[in-house]
């Protein structure tokens, strides 16, 4: 697939720029997203990677416009040049029903338990005045495509009679059914048994590539994201800190957080390398005026605490770090907890 970012000038399928989101928590607006910017070209897969609470799921909810009452957004969310936040009811319904589809994290919660699998699959088509017979035929065909062998029997069963893996395949089939252009997958395998995770991921990837769908893939697993996407956007505390091509992110990561995230992956080869970024992840609403990562960043300087860095182009990355050029290639984390502090002093004395 096309792994380069879209050529400048051409409209990407999805363009999110400077997205801000506030959600009411007990009557008080709470900042969930600070500054989220990314693009997804037609047929391109983007991985949104970050720890839990970093705002990646909320970003997809904005893309779907599935927000709780009282949520306030700022910035642009464009689909094919049309602002999603400005769509009227009819346009929104058309957009949801035929342009975009979503695969949720927990299929057991995302599929209504009181209807059969068949009813779930055909519901959206029936709403579009497709005849029952045709809708069912298409549903069965899709179930077969996602690897469900006894499709007609499964159509008559209820969600609780299917395993999580099967149910997620049903979910994938339902997402494909209305032939969308954009697929959103929100940690589609985390709720599943480890044994079925890989299968489901492979089916999702295969279906997407066959149909040439654009994909926004949410995960906390950098390696998984690198395997199935073209570009990766790293999120932290409601902000995109870095985007880069998936293929070489490992080698060329610029942001201290991205590097830390890469270093803290468990390694099967070298047990001693298991390492965690010090401190706890902050939520978007707790962040100070400076860079959201300062509190945990061993390279933070006064400027980082005072001024929030904007996302800018460095090499072929987009990175939000004041010291990106300066630190390029010099950030290393070590298993020893004190190493980063010494490192801090070293770099500050440069």
């Amino acid at each position, binding site marked *: 697939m096309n792994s380069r970012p879209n050529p400048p000038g051409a409209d990407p399928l999805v363009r999110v720029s400077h997205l801000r989101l506030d959600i009411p928590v007990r009557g008080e607006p709470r900042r969930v997203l600070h500054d989220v910017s990314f693009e997804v070209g037609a047929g391109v897969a983007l991985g949104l990677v970050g720890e839990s609470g970093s705002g990646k799921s909320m970003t997809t909810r904005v893309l*779907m416009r*599935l927000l709780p*009452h009282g949520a306030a957004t700022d910035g642009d969310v464009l689909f094919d040049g049309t602002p999603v936040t400005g769509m009227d009811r009819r346009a*929104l*319904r*058309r*957009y*949801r*029903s*035929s342009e975009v*589809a*979503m695969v*949720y994290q*927990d299929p057991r*919660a*995302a*599929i*209504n*338990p*009181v*209807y*059969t699998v068949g009813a779930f699959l055909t*519901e*959206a088509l029936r*709403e579009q005045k497709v005849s029952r017979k045709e809708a069912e035929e298409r549903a069965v065909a899709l179930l077969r495509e996602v690897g469900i062998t006894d499709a007609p029997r499964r159509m008559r069963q*209820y969600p*609780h*009679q299917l395993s999580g893996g099967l149910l997620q395949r049903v979910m994938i089939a*339902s997402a494909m059914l*209305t032939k969308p252009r954009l697929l959103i997958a929100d940690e589609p395998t985390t709720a599943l048994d480890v044994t079925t995770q890989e299968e489901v991921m492979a089916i999702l990837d295969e279906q997407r590539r066959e149909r040439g769908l654009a994909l926004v893939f949410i995960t906390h697993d950098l390696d998984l994201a690198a395997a199935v996407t073209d570009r990766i956007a790293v999120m932290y505390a409601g902000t995109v800190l870095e985007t880069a091509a998936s293929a070489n992110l490992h080698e060329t990561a610029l942001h201290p957080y991205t590097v830390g995230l890469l270093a803290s992956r468990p390694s099967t080869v070298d047990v001693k390398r298991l390492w965690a970024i010090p401190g706890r992840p902050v939520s978007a609403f707790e962040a100070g005026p400076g860079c959201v990562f300062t509190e945990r960043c061993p390279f933070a300087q006064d400027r980082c605490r005072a001024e929030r860095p904007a996302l800018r182009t460095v090499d072929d990355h987009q990175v939000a770090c004041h010291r990106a050029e300066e630190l390029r290639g010099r950030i290393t984390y070590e298993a020893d907890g004190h190493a980063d502090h010494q490192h801090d002093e070293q770099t500050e004395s440069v």
Partner: protein
Amino acid sequence: MTLTLHSAVSRFSGRTLWRIRAIVRRLAGAVLTVVVATFAVYAALAAAPGDPALALAGRNPTPERIAQLHQELGLDRPLVVRYFDWLSGLPRGDLGQSIVYRNSSVADLLGPRFGTTVFLVVYAAVLILLLGLLLGVLGGAFRRLNGPMAALTSVALAIPGFVAAPILVSALALGLGWFPAVGAGSGFTDQLWHLTLPALALAIGWCAWLAQITRTSLRAEKASEHVGTATGRGLPPVTVFRRHVLRNAAIPISTVYGLTVAGLLAGAAVVEQAFGIDGLGTLMLRSVSAKDYNVVLAVASLIIIAFVVTTQLVDALHTVLDPRLRTKGGRK
């Protein structure tokens, strides 16, 4: 081919067998509940102080007369035997003799009042369903109405039938003169007219309860993830509400409605008393003071049986509404 056919048959019969077994177990539980509960009533009434024979024997009875009366009333036999005697009379409609009205059977006393009370209870049940659902759905479907409906139901929940009665009577019967203040009426329309205020008084608190449960379960269901899925698929809001919110909330709503109806017969006694209606409830209350315990026993058993039957019906309805309860290994 034969192999798959065979496994299909065995699977089918296995499921049917499981279902039959579940039904039998449930019915057995219901019968056991009725038997234990009515025996408790029987025992309590038998343990009541005072000897009914003394009351019947007139002044200065001889011990022989008392013993004779004991035998006539069956009081000389053990409690359990007497209870099963009484129980075996039930299928024949034999509820025993009234002790106060010596020449009428308990069934004779119950008969004419049964209709009035059932009318009242059914009327109230219909009102509860209509008003409770209406208020609950309004509050649950429209965000703006949630607060006002919550306040309204909180107050209505605290209005018992016997307090609603004087309020309704002084406002709608004596004040505006729309409805009669007392009595049950005769004939369908007259009864409907007479029993409107009693049914309202009986319904009001339960109505508020149903409205509250409806509202909160609709709101909970609306916030559930599968409703997000349905909305995210571009289904129209009305379809989402009907197929995914209302349909799923029907499960808790039907539970509460069933419990409401099950308790209505007992609540009716208070309202009958408040409106001077000669029904089963007032008959029971009068019989308590008159120590006519066979009548008390009969009405009490009726209340218990109505409760158990209604809850069983609700359980059955649940298996229709919730597919997870229909198959073995499903959620309990």
